[in-house]
């Protein structure tokens, strides 16, 4: 899924870089004045989306760190109990 997204992303970037007039065609299609503007708008959307994905990813990583820290804490408690026995 992500591989597909990135392939598509770079393919589009490559096409637009080599043949700037394709951006103009897209611009006319969506009703934006110039091709360069379409590129700017699309980039902004992509960046915001990626920031959001990153945020979610960081949240996941935080959750994983917590699970590790919890495991360590609980193992330590288990050891103390065994020492007492």
């Amino acid at each position, binding site marked *: 899924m992500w591989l597909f997204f990135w392939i598509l992303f770079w393919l589009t970037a490559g096409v637009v870089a080599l043949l700037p007039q394709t951006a103009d065609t897209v611009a006319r299609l969506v009703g934006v004045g110039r091709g360069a503007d379409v590129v700017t708008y699309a980039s902004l959307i992509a960046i915001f989306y990626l920031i959001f994905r990153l*945020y*979610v990813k960081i*949240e996941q990583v*935080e*959750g994983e*760190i*917590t699970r590790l*820290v*919890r495991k*360590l*804490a*609980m193992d*330590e*408690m288990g050891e103390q109990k065994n020492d007492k026995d």
Partner: protein
Amino acid sequence: MKIFALIPAFNEETTIADVLTHTRPFVDGMIVVDDGSTDRTSEIARAQGAVCLRHVINRGLGAALGTGFETAKRLGADVVVTLDADGQHDPEEIQKFVEAVGKGADVVIGSRMLTGFVGMPIHRRIAQVLGNLVTFLLFGAWVTDSQSGYRAFNQFALSKIQVKTNRMEVSSELIAEAKRNALTLVEVPIRAIYTDYSLSKGQSFFVGIKTLFKLVVRRLSR
């Protein structure tokens, strides 16, 4: 009925001994989760006879409560009462929570609003009301003190509730979880003891905004 007190603590060496001494007569066991303190919190807690779990690094209130809940389950607790380590909650009121659980509540929230937020500064009161509104709008559960740290859970609630958030957003999350699992939620009026110390431990406006944002993400990620 096996009653456990669960006290999350982060750098609370000045108050933890007092809190534990006053809590002991009302419970069968005390669990302290030392959330990466750099002071003597865990030593003092152990000396006071509490089961003390130590987080290697600070993970926040939500993470500490999650660890405490896991431990309480392992120790076979029937009721877990969470209270703050800064001394703002009066352990004598634990009985109120246990009574409410005895009458059939799965989750009990101690509400400072039901006693009129006595001694709470005005900007704090506004923040509390906003917290209640956010909890209601995002999760559809209305309580009068969504950010209260004084709560009780029975065994059934513990088996159902999943804590996913790490920090202050956990207070609202617990209420959301109660609602999601259709648990019986009851509020009891509590009196908070505000000292300069406990007020200095409170949360800033900025933390409030961050908490709000994380709650929105938590709501979306369901």
